[in-house]
C-alpha cells in the first residue's frame, strides 16, 4: 500500500514538472483578433490532457519497474552470439540483394547509403571503439577523401580507381597531422579539439574558393569505370552496355556502385578484424583500458594512438572518395558536424568495439528514417524516441560484450561492465 502511495506521489511530482513545462507551450496560444491585435487564449483541456498523460505514463512505468522480471544477461549474450549466424546471413543477403526479384533502384540506392555509413562506422570504430579516443570530427577525413578525388579528377583527369588509394593516403596523412598535437589530450578535451578540426576543414573548403569552388562545390566528378568501361546511358563502344551488347540502364551503374561500396566496407571490416588479433589491435584495446599501464609495459602510447587515428582516417578517406564518385558533386554542405554525430551515434548505438553492432546500428540509424518517410512530420519524432528507448534498454549499445582475441581453452565473452570506455 505504502508503495502505491509512493508511486502516486512520484507520478504527481513528475506531472507537476510537466505542468510547468507545458503550461507556456500548450496552455497558452497567441492569435489575431479581427482588429489585428494579438490575443492570448488559454487551452486548459489540452494542457490537462498532456499533464494527465504524463502522470499516467510515469505511474505505469513505476508499476512495470516493480513487477518486471529480473534482467537477463543471457539477452546480451544471445545478441552477441546471434552475430555468429546473423552476420554471414546478412552478408549473403547483401551480396545477392541487387538481383533479388522486386528490388528497385531506390532500394539499391538505400543499400549504398547504408553501406557507406557501415563503412564509416567501421572506420570510426577503430578510433572510438578499439582505441577509446573520442573523435567528434571524423567527417573531416571523409571530406578530405571526397575533395582529394574531386580535385584530382577535375584538375588532373585522374579516375576513381587511381584516386581511391591516394584519397586514403591523404586522409591518413591528415589523421597523423591532426593527431600529433592533439593526442596528448584526453577525454573531453580531445573531443572538443577533434570537433574543432572537423569544422576547420569544412570552413577552409568553404572559403578557399579558388581551389575548391567554395560553397558551389565541385561538379562533374567522374563515375567509376569497370576496367575502363564507362556506365554511360548512351551505350556504344567503350561503355559497359556496349561491350556486353545489352541495353544501357541506370540500374547497371547503381548496382556497380553498390558492389564497390560493399567491397570497400568488407575490406574495412577484414582489416579491423585482422588487426584486433594482432599486437597493434591489442595495444589499442589496452590503451582504452589503461594508458598508464601501457606505458609501463613499454608501449609507445603516442605512436599507437597515431596508428589508430591514421587507419581510421584512411577508411574515412576511402568512404569520402566513394561518396564523391557516387554523387558526382560535392560541396561543404555534405560535411557538417551532423555527419560526424551520425557516424558516432552508429558506433555508440552498435556497442563500441563491435563490428556486427555497427551494421545493426547503421541499418537503424539510416534505414529507419528512410522507411518512415510515409509518416512525414512524425518521422524524426518517432526516430528520436526510438533512440532514447534503445539507449535506456541497452545503455552500452546493441552488442556490448567483447570476445577475447586469443584463448588457451575456450574464449569466454567479457561483459560490458568490465570494459573501460577509454579516457581519450
Amino acid at each position, binding site marked *: 500500500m505504502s508503495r502505491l502511495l509512493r508511486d502516486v506521489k512520484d507520478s504527481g511530482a513528475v506531472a507537476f514538472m510537466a505542468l510547468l513545462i507545458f503550461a507556456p507551450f500548450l496552455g497558452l496560444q497567441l492569435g489575431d483578433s479581427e482588429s489585428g491585435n494579438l490575443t492570448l487564449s488559454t487551452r486548459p483541456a489540452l494542457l490537462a490532457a498532456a499533464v494527465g498523460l504524463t502522470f499516467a505514463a510515469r505511474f505505469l512505468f513505476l508499476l512495470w519497474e516493480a513487477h518486471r522480471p529480473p534482467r537477463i544477461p543471457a539477452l546480451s549474450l544471445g545478441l552477441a552470439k546471434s552475430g555468429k549466424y546473423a552476420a554471414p546471413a546478412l552478408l549473403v543477403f547483401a551480396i545477392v540483394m541487387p538481383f533479388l526479384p522486386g528490388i528497385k533502384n531506390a532500394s539499391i540506392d538505400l543499400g549504398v547509403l547504408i553501406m557507406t555509413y557501415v563503412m564509416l562506422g567501421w572506420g570510426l570504430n577503430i578510433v572510438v571503439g578499439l582505441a577509446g579516443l573520442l573523435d567528434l570530427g571524423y567527417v573531416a577525413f571523409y571530406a578530405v577523401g571526397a575533395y582529394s578525388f574531386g580535385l584530382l579528377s577535375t584538375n588532373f583527369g585522374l579516375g576513381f580507381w587511381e584516386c581511391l588509394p591516394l584519397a586514403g593516403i591523404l586522409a591518413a596523412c591528415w589523421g597523423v597531422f591532426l593527431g600529433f598535437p592533439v593526442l596528448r589530450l584526453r577525454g573531453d578535451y580531445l573531443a572538443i579539439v577533434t570537433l574543432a578540426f572537423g569544422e576547420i576543414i569544412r570552413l577552409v573548403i568553404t572559403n578557399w574558393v579558388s581551389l575548391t569552388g567554395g560553397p558551389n562545390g565541385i561538379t562533374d566528378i567522374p563515375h567509376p569505370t569497370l576496367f575502363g568501361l564507362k556506365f554511360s546511358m548512351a551505350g556504344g563502344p567503350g561503355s559497359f552496355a556496349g561491350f556486353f551488347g545489352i541495353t544501357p540502364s541506370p540500374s547497371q551503374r547503381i548496382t556497380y556502385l553498390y558492389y564497390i561500396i560493399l567491397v570497400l566496407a568488407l575490406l574495412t571490416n577484414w582489416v579491423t578484424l585482422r588487426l584486433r588479433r594482432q*599486437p597493434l589491435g591489442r595495444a589499442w584495446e*589496452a590503451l582504452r583500458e589503461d594508458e598508464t599501464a601501457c606505458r609501463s609495459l613499454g608501449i609507445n602510447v603516442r605512436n599507437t594512438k597515431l596508428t589508430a587515428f591514421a587507419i581510421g582516417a584512411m577508411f574515412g578517406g576511402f568512404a569520402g572518395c566513394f561518396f564523391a564518385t557516387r554523387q558526382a558533386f560535392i560541396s561543404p554542405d555534405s560535411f557538417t558536424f551532423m555527419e560526424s554525430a551520425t557516424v558516432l551515434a552508429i558506433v555508440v548505438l552498435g556497442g563500441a568495439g563491435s563490428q556486427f553492432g555497427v551494421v545493426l546500428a547503421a541499418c537503424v540509424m539510416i534505414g529507419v528514417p528512410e522507411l518512415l518517410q510515409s509518416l512525414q512530420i512524425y518521422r524524426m519524432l518517432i526516430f528520436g524516441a526510438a533512440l532514447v528507448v534503445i539507449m535506456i534498454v541497452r545503455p552500452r549499445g546493441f552488442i556490448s560484450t567483447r570476445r577475447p582475441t586469443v584463448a588457451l581453452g575456450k574464449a569466454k565473452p567479457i561483459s560490458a561492465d568490465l570494459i573501460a570506455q577509454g579516457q581519450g
Partner: protein
Amino acid sequence: MTILTVAGLTMRFGGLTAVNNVSFTAQQGEITAIIGPNGAGKTTLFNCITGFYKPSSGSITVALGSKNLRLDKLPGHAIARKGRVARTFQNIRLFSGMSVLENLLVAQHNRLQASTGFGVLGILGLGGYRAAERRAIELATHWLAQTGLLERADDPAGALPYGAQRRLEIARAMCTEPLLLCLDEPAAGLNPRESAELNELLLGIRAAGTSLLLIEHDMGVVMKISDHIVVLDHGKKIADGTPADIRSDTAVIAAYLGEGDEDDPDAPLAEATP
C-alpha cells in the same frame, strides 16, 4: 654486481621536495626493499625510476651487462623496452576488460609487433608472426603457472579476486622479461596466506635471475625476504643496510615510533600504546 644506481636523486613539485638527494644501489640477484612512513617519498622515488616522473636532479643508472644506461634520460615507454625495468602499481592497473591471457600478450607487445612487420605482414598472415605468438603464449603460460592463474587464463582480468589481480599484475610485468622488477606494495590488502604465497613467488623470481626492488609496508614480507633495505623519511634516506642492521637502527626506530611528533598513524608499534 650493482644493477641499479640512484645518485643524488631529487624530485621537487613546486615548493615541495618529495625526494631529497637520495642515493642508494640495488645489487643484482637481490631483493632490495624501500620502506618508510607514509609520505616519505617512496612512490615518488619509484615513479622516477620507472620514468613516470622526470627527476629534478640526480641520476638513475641501470647496468645492462657491461653497459650502463641512464634511465632518467629515456622517454617513459622506453624504460621497459631498453632499460629492462618493469613495474606494478600500488592501485592495481590491469586491462580489466581483456582476458588474463590477453593482458600477458599486451605485455609482450614490442616483441610481437616487431614480428608483424609494422602490422602489414601480420594482416596478410605472412612473416613469423604465428611463431612469435606461439612463443608469447608459452611465456604467458609459464608465468600463469608460476602465479597459479593457469585455470583463469581465459577469464576477464577484472573478474579475478583481489589477490589474483595482484599476482596477475606481477605476471604481466614479468612477461616484459625485465632485469629489474619494481613492485609498489605488492602485499597490500593480502591475507596472511596470500602474503606467504607472494613471498614464495618473489623468491622464485629472484632465483630465476631478476632483481627486485619493492616498496612494502608489511614488515613480515620485508624482513623475511629482503636482502637489503633502504629507509626513507620525509624524502631523505635515513638508513641503508641488511634487515638486521635496520631493525636495530636508532634513526629508523625514531622515524617509525615518531620521536618528537606523537601521533604517526603509521608507526608499527602504535597499536601497542594504550
